[in-house]
C-alpha cells in the first residue's frame, strides 16, 4: 500500500485542459472555414489543406526521427500549422506550394528553435511569407472565383451594369489599392488644372469600383469573394472564433485591439476624400483580417503573456497592417504585421510586466 503513494509538490489536482486538447480545439475551430473553403473554391482547396497538413506532420516526424528525438506530432500543433498555412495560400497553387510551405514552416520556423513552445515566430505565417517571397507569381494571383460570386466580391449584376469586368479580376483589397491609386492620380491632375479625358474615364470607373466594393459587405461576410483558401468567409471564421472564446483558448485582448485599430486607422486614412472618409467595415471584413486577428495573432506561443503586452501587440499589428495596406508593397498586411509583432514579443513581455500584488504603493 505505502509504496504506491505518490509524493509531489502541491497542487494535487489539475485543470482538465492539456496542450493536446487545446491544439485539437483549435483544429475544430478551423473546420468551418475549411469546409467553407472547399465549398467556395472546390476540391482543389481540399487538396491544398490535406497536402499542407500532411507535409507539416511528416516533416516534423521525419526530423525528430532523424535527430533521434521523441516524436511529438501527437500534440496536434503541426496539424494546426498545416491548416493555417493552407488557409493562407490561394486555392489554385501547384501541389508543391503547400508542401514546401509547410515543410519550411516546421523545419526552419519551429524545430530548430526547440519545437513547440519555443518558436519565436508563427511558423505558418513564416511559411507563407517564405512562399510569397519565393514564388510571388503563384502566391499573388487569384483566378478562382468563389461559388456564386466574383473574385472582387462585387455583385455580378453590378459588374455588368457598371462595366467593371475589366478591373475586377482581383481580390477586393487589390481592386481597392489599384483603383485608389488611380483616384489619387486623378486628384493630382485636377489640382494641376490639366485636362486628361482618358484618366477621367478611368477615375470614374475607379469611383464606381470603390463604391461597389463598399456595397459588397454581405459577400465579404459570407465569403463570396476571391482570396486564400481559408480567409474569405468572415462568418465561418467567427463561428470558429466563438468556439475558441467559449473554450477560453483565446482571449479577446489581441483580436479586439487588432481589429479596432485597423477600423479606426482605415476610417481615418483609407479614404479618397481626405481624413475620416475611409470605409472601416470593408477593411475589417477583407484581406484575412479576421483569420489573422482570431487565429494567428492569438497564437499562444508567439504572443505576449502579459495583459498589457497583448493590448500593445494587437495595436501594433493593426498599425502595421494598415500601413502595409495603404502605402506598402502588398495589398494586405495581416501576415507581415503579425510576424513583425512576433519579433517584439520579448520586449513587450519585458516592459509590460504587471506590478506584483502589493507593490502598487511603492514607487
Amino acid at each position, binding site marked *: 500500500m505505502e509504496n504506491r503513494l505518490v509524493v509531489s509538490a502541491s497542487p494535487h489536482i489539475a485543470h482538465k485542459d492539456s496542450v493536446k486538447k487545446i491544439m485539437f480545439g483549435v483544429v475544430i475551430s478551423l473546420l468551418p472555414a475549411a469546409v467553407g473553403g472547399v465549398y467556395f473554391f472546390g476540391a482543389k482547396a481540399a487538396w491544398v489543406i490535406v497536402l499542407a497538413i500532411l507535409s507539416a506532420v511528416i516533416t516534423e516526424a521525419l526530423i525528430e526521427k532523424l535527430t533521434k528525438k521523441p516524436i511529438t506530432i501527437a500534440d496536434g500543433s503541426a496539424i494546426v500549422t498545416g491548416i493555417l498555412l493552407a488557409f493562407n495560400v490561394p486555392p489554385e497553387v501547384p501541389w508543391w506550394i503547400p508542401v514546401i510551405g509547410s515543410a519550411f514552416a516546421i523545419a526552419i520556423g519551429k524545430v*530548430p528553435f526547440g519545437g513547440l513552445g*519555443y518558436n519565436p515566430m508563427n511558423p505558418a505565417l513564416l511559411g507563407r511569407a517564405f512562399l510569397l517571397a519565393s514564388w510571388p507569381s503563384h502566391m499573388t494571383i487569384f483566378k478562382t472565383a468563389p461559388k456564386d460570386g466574383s473574385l472582387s466580391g462585387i455583385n455580378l449584376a453590378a459588374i455588368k451594369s457598371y462595366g467593371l469586368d475589366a478591373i475586377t479580376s482581383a481580390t477586393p483589397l487589390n481592386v481597392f489599392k489599384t483603383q485608389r491609386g488611380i483616384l489619387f492620380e486623378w486628384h493630382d491632375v485636377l489640382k494641376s488644372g490639366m485636362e486628361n479625358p482618358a484618366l477621367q474615364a478611368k477615375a470614374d470607373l475607379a469611383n464606381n469600383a470603390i463604391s461597389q466594393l463598399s456595397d459588397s459587405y454581405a459577400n465579404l461576410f459570407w465569403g463570396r469573394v476571391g482570396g486564400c483558401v481559408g480567409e474569405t468567409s468572415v462568418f465561418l471564421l467567427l463561428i470558429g472564433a466563438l468556439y475558441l472564446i467559449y473554450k477560453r483558448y483565446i482571449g479577446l485582448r489581441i483580436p479586439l485591439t487588432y481589429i479596432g485599430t485597423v477600423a479606426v486607422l482605415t476610417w481615418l486614412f483609407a479614404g479618397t476624400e481626405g481624413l475620416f472618409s475611409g470605409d472601416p467595415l470593408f477593411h475589417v471584413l477583407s484581406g484575412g483580417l479576421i483569420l489573422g486577428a482570431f487565429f494567428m495573432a492569438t497564437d499562444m506561443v508567439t504572443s505576449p503573456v502579459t495583459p498589457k503586452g497583448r493590448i500593445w501587440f494587437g495595436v501594433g499589428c493593426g498599425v502595421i497592417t494598415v500601413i502595409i495596406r495603404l502605402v506598402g508593397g502588398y495589398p494586405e498586411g495581416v501576415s507581415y*504585421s503579425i510576424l*513583425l509583432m512576433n519579433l517584439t514579443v520579448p520586449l513587450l513581455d*519585458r516592459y509590460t510586466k504587471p506590478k506584483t500584488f502589493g507593490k502598487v504603493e511603492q514607487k
Partner: protein
Amino acid sequence: MDLNHLFVITISAIFINNFVLNRFLGICPYIGVSKNMDSAVGMGMAVVFVMTLASMVTWLIYDFMLKPTTSNIFYIIFSAKEPPDLTYLKTIAFILVIASLVQFVEMVVQKVSPTLYKSLGIYLPLITTNCAILGVAFLNLDENFNFIESIVNGFAAGVGFTLALVLMAGIRERLELAPIPKPLRGVPIAFLMAGLMAIAFLGFSGLKL
C-alpha cells in the same frame, strides 16, 4: 529643406532598407552583442551617436577636401589652377577619420560624463571595425545626399541598426532558455533568427511614402 524627403530617408533607412537585415552592414556586432539586452541597448546608442557624427564629418571631408570643386580646401589654399580630384583617397580618408573620431568621442565622453562612459565606453572601441559606420559614409556618397540628408540618414541608419539589435537581443535572451539542437546553438541559431527577421522585414519592402 523638404521635410517630407527627410522623413522618407528616415523610414527607408530604419525599415525598408534596414542596415542589418537588408544591407548586411554591421553583422559582426549584430551577432556578437545581441546576447543580452543591456549591452544591445548600450551598443545601439553608441552606434547611433557615432554614425550621426561620422556621416557629418565624412560629408564635410568629402565635399571640402576630396571633391574637385571650387570650394575644395586644397584648391583654395594652394590656389591651384584646377580643383584637384582626390576622390580616390576617400576610403583611406574615411577610415582614418572614423577611427580618430571614435577615439576622440571616447576621450570626450570619458571626461564629460563618466556614467555615460560606463554604459557606452566599452562599445566604442568595437565600433571602429563596425562596417556599418564606414558603410553609411559610402552610402551617403552613393545616394548623393546633401549635408542635412547625410546626417539624417546616418542617424536613421543607426536607429535601424539599434532596432534590429534590440529585437534580436530580446529573442536571443529567450533562446538561451530553449532546447535548441546542439549544433545550432549560439551563432547558427542567431543567423537563422536573423533570416526569419529579415523575412518579416520584407513586409516593409515596397513601402511608398
